C-alpha cells in the first residue's frame, strides 16, 4: 500500500497546492491582525485586559469559520479531479472503492496540516513576542488543536458527501437546505397559530454545533487565543 | 518481406505468409541459412495475430523449407533445385488458374487467352 499512499498524497498535493498556499497565508496573517488590533484597543491601563478580551472575542468568530472553510475546500479538491473525469480512472485501478476512498481521506488529512501548522505558527508568532496585560496568557497550542479538530470534522463530513456523485451530493445538501429553510418558516408559523412553543431549527442547528455532546462541540466554546 | 497480406483473399493469412516464403525461396531471394524474421517481428510488421505467423512457419517446416532452431529463430533450409522448380511451376499454374477464372467472367475462353499471351510475350504458340 505504500506506493499507493505516496502517490495519492502526490495527487492531492497537485490538485490543492494553490488552495493550501492561500489558506496558509491567511492562517499566518489573521492571528497577527486580530492580536495586534486587540492589543492596541486594550491599551495600557488597569482595564486593559477587559478591553483586550472583548476585542479579541469580537473577532474570534472568524476562526471556526476559517477552520470549516479549510476542511470543506480540501475535501472538495480531493474529489474534484475524479468528478470532472467521471471517475473512470479511479474505477479502473486495482483497489477496492473503500480502499480508494480511505487513501484519499488520508491524503487530504495530511495536506491539511499545511494550513493547520500555519495557524499554529501564526498564533505563536502573534503572541510570543508581545507583552500581555497582567492576568492574561496566550494559548497557541490549544488554539491550534481546536482549529485542527474543527477542520478535520468538516473535512470528513464534506469528504463523505463529495464521495458520491455530484448528483447525490446535491440531493443531500438540497434536502438538508429544504428541511432547514422549511423548518425556519414553518415553526414560527405553527407557533403563532397554535400558541405553542416549539424549538426553532436555527436554534437546534446552533446548539448541535456548539453544545451537544459530541465532536461538533469544538465549534462552540472558546476560540480565544488569549485568555485568563 | 514487406508484401502486404490480403485479409480479403479466400486464402487464409497463414497460407499467404507461407506461400510468400516459398516463392522467395524458389526465386532464391532467400538462400539456405538465411534467417526469417522472428514471429514477434513479423506479426507486428504485418499486424497479424502472432499465432498466424507461428502456423505459417510450422507449415513451412513441415514442407521442408525452413527449420526452427530452438530459441535461435527460423532459418531457410537448403532446398533442392527440383523443389524450387516445382514451386515455381505451382505458382505459375495458380496465376493461370486465376487468370482463366477472371476471363471466364467476361466469357473469354482459354484459346483467346493463349493468343493474347503469345502476342504479349512475342512467342509463337505451338498448336
Amino acid at each position, binding site marked *: 500500500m505504500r506506493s499507493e499512499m505516496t502517490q495519492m498524497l502526490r*495527487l492531492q498535493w497537485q490538485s490543492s497546492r494553490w488552495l493550501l498556499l492561500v489558506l496558509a497565508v491567511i492562517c499566518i496573517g489573521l492571528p497577527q491582525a486580530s492580536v495586534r488590533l486587540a492589543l492596541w484597543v486594550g491599551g495600557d491601563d488597569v482595564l486593559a485586559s477587559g478591553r483586550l478580551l472583548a476585542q479579541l472575542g469580537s473577532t474570534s468568530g472568524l476562526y471556526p469559520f476559517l477552520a470549516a472553510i479549510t476542511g470543506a475546500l480540501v475535501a472538495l479538491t480531493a474529489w474534484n479531479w475524479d468528478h470532472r473525469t467521471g471517475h473512470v480512472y479511479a474505477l479502473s485501478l486495482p483497489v477496492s472503492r473503500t480502499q480508494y476512498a480511505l487513501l484519499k481521506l488520508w491524503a487530504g488529512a495530511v495536506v491539511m496540516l499545511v494550513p493547520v501548522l500555519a495557524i499554529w505558527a501564526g498564533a505563536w508568532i502573534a503572541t510570543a513576542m508581545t507583552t500581555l496585560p497582567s492576568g492574561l496568557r496566550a494559548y497557541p497550542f490549544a488554539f491550534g488543536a481546536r482549529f485542527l479538530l474543527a477542520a478535520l470534522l468538516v473535512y470528513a463530513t464534506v469528504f463523505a458527501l463529495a464521495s458520491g456523485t455530484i448528483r447525490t451530493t446535491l440531493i443531500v445538501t438540497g434536502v438538508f437546505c429544504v428541511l432547514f429553510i422549511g423548518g425556519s418558516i414553518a415553526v414560527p408559523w405553527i407557533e403563532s397559530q397554535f400558541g405553542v412553543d416549539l424549538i426553532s431549527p436555527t436554534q437546534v442547528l446552533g446548539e448541535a454545533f456548539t453544545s451537544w455532546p459530541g465532536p461538533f462541540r469544538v465549534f462552540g466554546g472558546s476560540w480565544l487565543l488569549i485568555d485568563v | 518481406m514487406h508484401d502486404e497480406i490480403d485479409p480479403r483473399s479466400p486464402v487464409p493469412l497463414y497460407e499467404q505468409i507461407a506461400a510468400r516464403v516459398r516463392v522467395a525461396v524458389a526465386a532464391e531471394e532467400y538462400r539456405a541459412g538465411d534467417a526469417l524474421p522472428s514471429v*514477434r517481428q513479423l506479426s507486428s510488421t504485418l499486424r497479424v495475430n502472432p499465432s498466424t505467423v507461428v502456423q505459417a512457419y510450422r507449415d513451412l517446416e513441415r514442407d521442408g523449407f525452413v527449420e526452427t532452431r530452438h530459441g535461435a529463430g527460423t532459418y531457410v533450409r537448403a532446398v533442392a533445385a527440383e523443389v524450387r522448380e516445382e514451386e515455381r511451376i505451382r505458382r505459375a499454374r495458380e496465376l493461370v488458374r486465376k487468370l482463366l477464372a477472371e476471363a471466364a467472367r467476361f466469357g473469354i475462353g482459354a484459346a483467346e487467352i493463349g493468343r493474347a499471351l503469345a502476342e504479349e510475350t512475342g512467342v509463337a504458340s505451338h498448336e
Partner: protein
Amino acid sequence: MSEAIEVRGLSYRAGRSFELRDVSLTVPRGSIYGFLGPNGAGKTTTIRVLLGMTRRDGGDVRLLGHSIPGELPGALARIGYVPERPHVYPSLTVADALRCHAAFHHRWDGVWAEQLRRQFELPLDRRVGRLSKGESGKLLMLLALAQRPELLILDEPTDGLDPMVRRDVLTALLDYVSETGATVFISSHLVHELERMCSWVGVLDHGRMVAELPIDVLKSGIKKIRLTDTPVNGHHPPFEVLSRGRDAFETETWVVRGWSDPMVQYFDTAGATVREVVDLDLEEVFVELLRSGREVTS
C-alpha cells in the same frame, strides 16, 4: 485453465430505449477477440459492465477466473484497459501519469515504459489534457501495456487516429502479445483493421449478440453468389440464405451461409447459372449479418 472472459446472460437497462439483452460471450485465453458492432450497439457499455464500472441488472461475468464484481480489484490488477476517451487526469503531465499508474500497478515495467514513451515520442512535461488525439491514444496504450497485463480490454483504441499512429499502437500491442501470449479483447467498428489480427469475432447489434465465431469459420462459411438469372425454385436450398438482391449492375446476387461447391446444382435445377462464387471480406460479412439480423453460431 479458465477462459479469459466469460459472460453469461448479461442484461442491463438504461432509460427507456437502451438495453443489453442476454449477452453471452467467451474469450479464450491467448486469443485476439474482435468485438464488433455498429456505433450505438452497446459495445462501450458492455465493456464498462464487464469491468464493474457500471452495475448490471443480471447475468454472470468472470474475468480471468475472477467473478465480477466480487473479486474486482484482483482482476483489475491483471487487466490493462484502454477506454474510448482518455481517463487519466488532464492536469497531470505525462511523467506524472506514468508515475501514478506505476504506483498502483505492481507489475509495472518502468524500463519498457520509457522505451515505449521514446518510441511514441511523448514529451514528459506535456500535460495530458494538452496532448493531441494521437498522443493520447499512444499514452493510453502505453499505460495499459507497461502494466504487463494478462488480458487487455481495448475500447476503440484506434478510433480517430491517423494511419501512422494506428500502426504504431497496433504494432506495440502485437509485439507484447507475441512476447507474452496475453489475451486481447478489442472493440472496434473499423472492421478492416481487426480482420488481420483477430482469431475470434463477436458481433453486437442493438444490445444483443448476433454472432460469435472463429474468424476463419465466419468468413469461409459465408459466400456471395452471382447468378445469371433469377432462380425459380421449388424446394428448400441446401444452404442458408442470408440475403437476396441485385448488385449495382443488376446482377442477381445471393449471400449464403454453409455453401459448398456441389451446391451449384441447386441453381442449375432452378433455371439460373452460377456465374461467380465470391468470398466476402469481414466487413461485408458483418454488414450482411446485421442486415439479415440472423443469429449465427458455430
